[in-house]
């Protein structure tokens, strides 16, 4: 029941903008700027033959709040750097394992909320994080970005992207524009874009009318080797369409409920 209410609230909030791109970008920034949140976590990588043994390090990244309970979607690659590389490693005969712990989502006031992963999909490069103490009423989450099916873009469309500036500038929300360079249809739909921010994945991109088009994620492919060098990993930042995210979010909500 709680999930249903959340989704309803999100749906009511959804509306289209009209007017010049600049105005719409400013409105989106005002409305959803804080919905782009940063997170940090500890990742541990272990593999046979690693000369210095298991390695741990802290990672940081960006995510987008997609439900009123703080459910946040991030790029799986930003959370687990070896995500999507299983094939490449298997071809080399090494199978590293990564584990992620101590995930914390940063709020506007600097408070950090512990979170856990509820669902991950290496193919789509998304992971959903659920705040641990989401029942705490003193924690208020920003307005969620609601991804729905049926939102599409064409080549050369202009997009509006949201991100944050990081610790150097006090985590200030920021907005940028991007352009659709290509639309990939196989094996699944995704958009190739000029990137509005140099390093942001896990952040939303909108059509100029304010509808969320999708999420910036990393697409990795292990290309078959043409030479004796063997397989090569290629990667690019793409926009994962809203319809995939909507489907995944439904699964994530179920996984979250099951986890409780």
């Amino acid at each position, binding site marked *: 029941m709680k999930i249903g209410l959340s989704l309803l609230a999100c749906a009511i909030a959804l509306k289209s903008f009209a007017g010049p791109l600049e105005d719409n970008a400013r409105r989106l920034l005002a409305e959803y700027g804080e919905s782009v949140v940063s997170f940090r976590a500890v990742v541990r990588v272990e593999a046979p033959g690693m000369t210095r043994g298991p390695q741990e390090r802290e990672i940081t990244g960006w995510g987008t709040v997609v439900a009123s309970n703080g459910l946040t979607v991030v790029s799986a690659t930003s959370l687990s750097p070896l995500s999507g590389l299983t094939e490449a490693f298997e071809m080399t005969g090494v199978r590293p394992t990564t584990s992620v712990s101590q995930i914390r989502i940063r709020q506007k006031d600097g408070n950090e909320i512990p979170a856990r992963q509820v669902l991950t999909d290496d193919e789509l490069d998304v992971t959903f994080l659920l705040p641990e103490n989401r029942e705490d009423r003193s924690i208020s989450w920003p307005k969620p970005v609601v991804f729905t099916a049926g939102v599409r873009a064409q080549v050369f469309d202009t997009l509006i992207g949201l991100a944050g500036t990081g610790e150097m500038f006090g985590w200030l929300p920021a907005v940028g524009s991007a352009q659709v360079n290509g639309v990939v249809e196989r*094996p699944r739909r995704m958009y190739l874009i000029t990137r509005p921010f140099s390093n942001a994945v896990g952040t939303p991109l909108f059509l100029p009318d304010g509808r969320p088009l999708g999420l910036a994620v990393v697409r990795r492919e292990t290309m078959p080797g043409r030479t004796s060098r063997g397989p090569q990993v290629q990667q690019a930042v793409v926009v994962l369409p809203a319809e995939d995210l909507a489907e995944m979010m439904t699964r994530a909500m179920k996984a979250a409920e099951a986890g409780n």
Partner: protein
Amino acid sequence: MLVVTGCGRTTSQHADTKPEMALPAQLEQGAEISVGLARDMERAISRVYPAIVRLDVISEQAADGRMKKERGFGSGVIIRSDGYLITNHHVAGRARRIRCRLASGEEVEGRIVGTDPLADVTVVRLDLEQRKSAEPLPTAEFGDSDALRVGDIVLAMGSPGGVSQSVTRGIVSNTALILPSGTLTLDGENVGSLVRWIAHDAQIFGGNSGGPLVDMQGRIVGINEIAFAGIGGAIPGNLARSIAEQIIEKGRVDRSWIGLITQTRPKSLPVEKGVLVASVMPDSPAEEADLRPGDILLSYDGVEVDGSMPEDLPLFNVLVVSTPIGKEVVVKYLRDGEEREARLRTRRREPARGRDRLLRSWGVTAQDFTLFSAMAYLRESTDGVIVSSVSAGGPAAQAEPPIQPGDVIIAVEGETVVNLEALEKKTEKILEGRVGAHPVLVAFERGRSRFLSVVRIGQPPRPDRPERTKRPDFPAVVQAVPTSLAEVLGLPDTGGIRVAYVFPGLSVDQAGIQTDDIIISFDGVPVRARRPEDAMQFVRQIRARKSGSVIPVELLRKGEKIRVELTLAESMDAAAEADRYEARLLDFDARALTLQDRALRKLPDDFKALLVERVEEASASELAGLRTGDLLISIAGRPISDTAALEEIVKALEKERPRYVVLFVRRGVNTMYLEVEPDWNRDHTVSQVTGLEIGQ
């Protein structure tokens, strides 16, 4: 840099800068001498060779908030029939486990009796109860290293590269080799402040360290330690023997300290003799005796001293550190051209720095202050605990603000932390009866600043195990059909997907698709695959579909078109979800075999084994030869059918505690037996080793 001033009872002699050249007498006596030389060499070798030992050492080193294990090899020589051997500190001084292979081929465990980083000497005692032979233990005797002369023939014995015991021959090149100050530092101790090496050209390599340098009478005159530019360097036998004797007697080396840093006299000083005082440490015996920088020391405890050249300084240092602790010593010195006299009382010399220990619930390694490390930190007391390394994911690193290497923990929950032991006790008290992490208020110093932080000590949170989306797979190996291949195979030039291998029992196999089939249409859409990436895209497309979908597939088989139906099924990569067991006691993880494992390795269905997924670095299992990817068939003769069986066997072994555990594994097409010597008492061993410290 801490240059430790020292003592020495016999330092009236000068550095050997102009050594008396002693051509081996044999060279002057013609060819027949070579027979005598060979006889001498044979005799010398026969006296020492049986006593040399190859050491296979597992050491621990603090890094990234853990005590990381490392494996190394070195040499040693047995000096007493009751099992004492001498080696280098850098070989075995931080050992957690030492396996000793005697010249006879016998293997026994050794344990550290005491270690001395300042002279790079460690004494190990062999566990003679593990010997099967009733023969007396062979030993070697020390000779007089002071009697060595440049040109003397010497033999270097040991295990170069960790291989079998070997002997090389050379001559003494220098009897008082020095290195630039600080070139060789072990645990913060400047080895060159005490040691003047015997240089020789008997070839030595890594692994020779700790092995004996032997004269032609078959006596130990040095312990090999360093090698550079084709020259080997051995710690003089007399110094090594005196240290070994102290360690065997007391388990440690007692040394005196007076708090002076000395240097060679500048050439511009109009003085012919004496050691220049460069610095006087605060609150030291030297300061109390009013010695000052610029003073020229002429004698120490009745022994004339000199610092004309760098080779002289180790002699002075040895003189100081060898003085009995607490002895009142008369020092004569020059100040402003006037000869003066001072009396000072020596104190016990402390190590340069404390030994690292793991604070698991903090995610750090840490060490106590010693007098010297406190001085280096400009601290007035040795109170506090130095954090030497931090685990990035551990409680200390995740604290707000995080604790970093080099920080000094001075208080926990408002209570002063005097040393590591106090911090361990406080931690134990805080965590008693608690589960999970517990926040504690910590005060720490960084430079001149004092910070407050909250550290959640205790068991770190377990990693997330999120649900993973399962997608359909195409359990076969495929390749695109380029034009050239299509031509040769007589296929239409439309490309296609050739099936190179079908995993048995899975969806593709069940659909009736076979190796050599060419897929020309999938779900009614022609497959045009000419480049390798097209084959990859073909598989990717399947992953974008829904499990359970039934897809019509058109194939070419031996020139004929065939139509089959493929029911898409979820990924066959079950490795991530396979049952696994962490056999901590034997330091490896193993998991159940998947269908893919069986297919790739062509294993019959009734083949029972577990796949070894991880082997702890430098563990007993790795030493025995266990490797990731091995198939574990049995342990101690008991078959391993699944992870439950493995768990049961490991638990039984923990009770039985056999010295050897035999693993039967399959690697590739071969099977082999691996003999593991588990470290049943490892925690006990660690505390034994960490408790050993010189001069405390």
